[in-house]
């Protein structure tokens, strides 16, 4: 059972762009990912939006193994800036997990 952290998205976002509100969970991104990452990106974005911080922090490897190849982004029917969001998440990990 996860208790939601309401301002997680604000912590992630800080001054950068993070916007997945248009995501309708269709799953195209997951299906089309060349790496076949199970969690990227819609699942991880949900963690951020809902405020599931612990679940998010477990996803370090997935976040950093993204190729940033934009295959998902150009095929996203909702026009989510997926790659920008992943970079923002990396920046969040840099601060949060690595203390950079």
């Amino acid at each position: 059972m996860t208790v939601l952290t309401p301002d997680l998205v604000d912590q992630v976002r800080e001054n950068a762009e993070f916007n997945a509100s248009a995501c309708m969970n269709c799953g195209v991104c997951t299906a089309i990912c060349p790496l076949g990452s199970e969690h990227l990106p819609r699942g991880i974005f949900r963690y951020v939006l809902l405020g599931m911080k612990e679940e998010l922090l477990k996803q370090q490897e997935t976040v950093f193994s993204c190729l940033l190849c934009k295959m998902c982004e150009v095929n996203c029917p909702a026009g989510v800036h997926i790659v920008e969001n992943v970079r923002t998440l990396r920046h969040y990990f840099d601060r949060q997990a690595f203390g950079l």
Partner: protein
Amino acid sequence: MPLPTGDTIGILTDNLRLRRSVLPIPVESAIRWTKGLNLPRGGKRVLYTGLMYQLIPYIEDLVEAQTKLGDSWLAGLTGVGRRMNRLINVAAFLAHPSKQEQEAYDRIPRNVALLLQRAGVEFGSLYEDDLYSGALAYDLGADEALRAHAQKVYAALKKHGVQEVVTIDPHTTNMLRSVYPALIEDYDIRVRNYLEVLAEAEMLPHHRLEGDVAIHDSCVFARYEGVVAQPRLLLEGAGLTLCEPHHAGTMTWCCGGPVESLYPQKAAQQAERRVEELHAVADRGVTMCPLCYVNLQKAAQDRMRFDDISDYLLQAYEG
């Protein structure tokens, strides 16, 4: 050994901050490609390498040292420690590519310079002020380091009175053209890739090339920068028969390169799958990005041979 992602990113940001490159290399290695070209220093238009090709032999050298450990070249640096790296350029000790290795990659910016001259484009070079673009820092979310570094790059461009930059590889193109404007106020540098410049020049080939070649689009070119038609125009104009793999153009598949620095095994797996796709349509392949080239060639071994697009173009369009 679990990958120390944090240390890795720390080291490269330190490098970027202290030595103006994620992997600092000697100045003579950075500018060797200009030898004999008599390029003016600075000027309104410059050919900008972003060190991408010059860095490759160093990275390859580190990779070779590290593959035995099954880790990335950056992870190797972290073994020495981030604290140490701040004082001493660790990479300089670990990587000593031979002159031969380096010249193989110096050839590419030289190819491009010759092609541009052939197309009648006037340009200079920034020599030692031709800095790394910060692409890796950008990819890894090291925003603060990137922001500071971008200012240095911009200052260097301004110092030499540059108004327009002609880039070679996709990552530098993307950074200077699409990322910097968001980082630098009133950024006013016009950025074009040399493939765009050449495609517009409508040159006629002096030598007709023949044969099939599998085209590997760079993700950054195809999906970030919209460079899809230009390489096809130029290669087909040269007489080559282009073979499109299953994933091509805006739907191209990544070479795996972007995660090479952190997850080399994942990078290798992706490169392997991509080579299979390319090999299915032709026995030789053409790349447009040094990272694609290195990753795919390494995965292909002797199965197929890759060449940089500039090699083909120079053969065809050289006077």
